[in-house]
């Protein structure tokens, strides 16, 4: 078992970049900030590829099983002798896989941003935040301790907050960032309590130990946690569900998804990195990390499954109706993550039944590439058009050929058309679903069809539809960001094209990675084969969906509107995102603020403080009342004198003899 200590540098390099840029970037390094960040990240990427090679192909496997290797463990904060936050590095298939994904996507985004964010006033800050995010994400995936996960979880959240609110003078961006942070924070509360529960019964916070203890059916910990129950559900279920709540929040699962579409206010590369490829899959990753424990508890798994499936469908439906291209992509992300979730949910731990797990991870892997590709493509489109709205676009295929091709590939990939990446992973998921749960399978199939429909709706709307030329894009341009200086820059500089090309290549290629050999629930290789007969149905479905989309949107016509009006209420509901936002707004603005906040504030001013004031006032009043004693008449004084004597005498001569 060789030494993986150098993995430590993979997160540390971005951290260093963040510190340097954060302290001095603004003043001194604003010129070279981008290069600096990119360079450091390039190094991390190379390192992580080395790590991947070493782990998967050199010494990760010991007699046919990929080992969990704890490369580093340092007690950071000790709560009590055996319960402590340990900063550690765990090396196992999924973490290594994630390493590769995160670093490479992040690298692409760094490169892309060199062009996209060029000339921004807070260029250095931007790269500082990017590095911060990359660091936190890497820390998150390398965590060996559940509390460490939580820490980096929060850091990821805050860096996403900072990046979304990058255009801080845009109120909508600020609002979006607030929403994102608060919603995820709310979910994290669940996560925290889940951790507390698991940690209490498990007597440790180390994930490895937790798994060990909770998977051993006759261990004291397992018995105690399953024995204890609350509202009918065992503490294990509670703990896992709450942990999953955290995951759902980050992965924008229904009903905690509302922040994701708004988060698109951030710069597009950021959306590509955070809200498509990496952070949003953290939830999936978390469930996968804890999967052995999840697999011990049917109830929790079911929750995962149904939440995942629901989100997948729900998001797909909405995505069909949105007109802001980034929002469409956001919803598609949500839907794809839903895929991964329920894939995990239906999976079992180990062996053939672990197919779902493997498939989910596989989809996560492929999705990262084509989804970031989609976002970056959208990015360069927006960069050109200065608008997120479909209506401002159309016929761009001539103006930006490379983007066009890349986007097309990505669409095909997500639609699951062979031989593109999405096809393979999706097939695995569908197969797993088919074996485990027919209802889910149905939903999955339908969602797949919807996916290809809305993706190509997007594609045709951008690149085909009405024929327009670059010039009048310049007119419609309303400042998406401070780029109005230079309008007709075509597809932008090569730094923006290069990532598209590379990612497109990945979107084609990564499907052929022998994933099932490498990443499985139990580390053993899993023999899978693409069953052609089985895969006909979904492919045909998506092809049909694509044709439908082409029919609707390839040229300008009003068929789509007809259909929309045919659906009527459903359409508007979907267009309005099923009014979830409104519900949240109602709860916060109409319930929490007026019925909890204001009463408390009022009570504090008038009751609690009022009581103190009352004491003071009463004292003053009493002293006003009794001032008559001091009448100024010496005779009254004498009488009071006598009265005093009388009282004392009565008391001591008659009462207390």
């Amino acid at each position, binding site marked *: 078992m060789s030494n993986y200590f150098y993995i430590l540098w993979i997160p540390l390099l971005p951290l260093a970049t963040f510190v340097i840029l954060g302290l001095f970037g603004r003043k001194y390094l604003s010129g070279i900030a981008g290069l600096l960040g990119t360079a450091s990240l390039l190094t991390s990427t190379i390192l992580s590829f080395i790590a991947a090679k070493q782990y998967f192909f050199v010494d990760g496997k010991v007699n046919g099983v990929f080992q969990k290797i704890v490369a580093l463990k340092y007690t950071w904060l000790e709560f009590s002798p055996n319960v402590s936050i340990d900063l550690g590095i765990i090396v196992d298939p999924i973490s290594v896989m994630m390493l590769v994904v995160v670093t490479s996507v992040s690298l692409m985004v760094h490169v892309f941003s060199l062009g996209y964010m060029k000339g921004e006033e807070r260029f250095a800050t931007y790269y500082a935040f990017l590095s911060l995010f990359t660091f936190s994400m890497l820390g998150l995936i390398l965590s060996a301790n559940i509390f460490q996960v939580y820490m980096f979880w929060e850091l990821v959240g805050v860096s996403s907050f900072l990046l979304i609110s990058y255009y801080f003078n845009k109120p909508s961006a600020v609002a979006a960032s607030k929403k994102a942070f608060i919603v995820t924070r709310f979910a994290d509360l669940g996560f925290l309590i889940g951790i507390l529960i698991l940690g209490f019964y498990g007597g440790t916070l180390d994930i490895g130990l937790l798994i060990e203890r909770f998977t051993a059916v006759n261990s004291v910990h397992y018995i105690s946690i399953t024995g204890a129950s609350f509202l009918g559900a065992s503490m294990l279920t509670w703990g896992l569900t709450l942990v999953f709540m955290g995951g759902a929040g980050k992965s924008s699962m229904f009903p905690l998804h509302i922040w994701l579409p708004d988060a698109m206010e951030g710069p597009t590369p950021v959306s590509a990195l955070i809200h498509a490829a990496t952070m949003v899959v953290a939830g999936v990753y978390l469930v996968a990390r804890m999967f052995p424990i999840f697999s011990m508890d049917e109830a929790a798994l079911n929750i995962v499954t149904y939440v995942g499936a629901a989100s997948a469908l729900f998001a797909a439906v909405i995505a069909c109706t949105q007109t802001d291209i980034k929002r469409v992509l956001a919803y598609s992300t949500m839907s794809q993550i839903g895929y991964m979730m329920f894939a995990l949910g239906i999976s079992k731990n180990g062996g053939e039944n672990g197919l779902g797990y493997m498939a989910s991870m596989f989809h996560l892997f492929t999705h990262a590439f084509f989804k970031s590709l989609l976002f970056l493509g959208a990015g360069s489109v927006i960069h050109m058009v200065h608008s997120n709205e479909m209506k401002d676009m159309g016929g761009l295929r001539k103006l930006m050929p490379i983007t066009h091709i890349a986007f097309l590939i990505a669409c095909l990939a997500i639609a699951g058309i062979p031989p593109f990446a999405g096809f393979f992973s999706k097939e695995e998921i569908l197969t797993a679903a088919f074996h485990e749960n027919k209802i889910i399978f149905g939903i999955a199939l339908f969602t797949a069809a919807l996916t290809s429909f809305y993706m190509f709706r997007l594609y045709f709307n951008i690149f085909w539809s009405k024929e327009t030329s670059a010039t009048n894009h310049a007119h419609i341009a309303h400042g998406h960001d401070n780029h109005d200086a230079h309008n007709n820059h075509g597809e932008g500089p090569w730094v923006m094209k290069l990532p598209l090309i590379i990612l497109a290549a990945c979107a084609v290629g990564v499907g052929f990675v022998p994933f099932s050999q490498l990443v499985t629930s139990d580390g053993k290789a899993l023999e899978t084969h693409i069953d052609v007969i089985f895969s006909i149905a979904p492919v045909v479905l998506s092809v049909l969906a694509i044709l439908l989309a082409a029919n609707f949107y390839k040229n300008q016509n009003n068929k789509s509107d007809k259909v929309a009006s045919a659906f009527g209420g459903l359409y508007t509901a979907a267009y309005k995102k099923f009014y979830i936002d409104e519900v949240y707004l109602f709860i916060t603005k109409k319930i929490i603020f007026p019925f909890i906040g204001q009463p408390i504030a009022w009570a504090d001013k008038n009751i609690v403080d009022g009581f103190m004031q009352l004491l003071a006032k009463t004292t003053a009043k009493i002293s006003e009342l009794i001032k008559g004693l*001091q*009448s*100024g*008449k*010496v*005779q009254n004084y*004498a009488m009071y004198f*006598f009265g005093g004597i009388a009282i004392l005498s009565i008391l001591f001569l008659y009462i207390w003899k």
Partner: protein
Amino acid sequence: MQDIPLSQILFVSTFLFFIGMYGLFTRRNLITMLMSIELMLNSVNINFVAFNKYLFPDNLDGLFFTLFIITIAAAEAAVAIAIIINLYRSHNSIDVDDATEMKY
């Protein structure tokens, strides 16, 4: 002489005392109030003398005390009257109710 019991003398003195007190409480004229106080003091004198004569005839503490009370009462009266005169200068009245500027 011996057949007057102590209790009756004490009764007289107490009665005197309360007459004095009553006078002090009710009369508005400062001089009269001063006189009422003298009454009280005198009742005390009677007490002392009576106690001394009836209960402890073998030493004369009571009598002496009486003498001192009388002298001091005189001194007190002197000062008091001086003050009252001065009050009259400033207030043009020796009615106690006119001298109630300071109150509350």
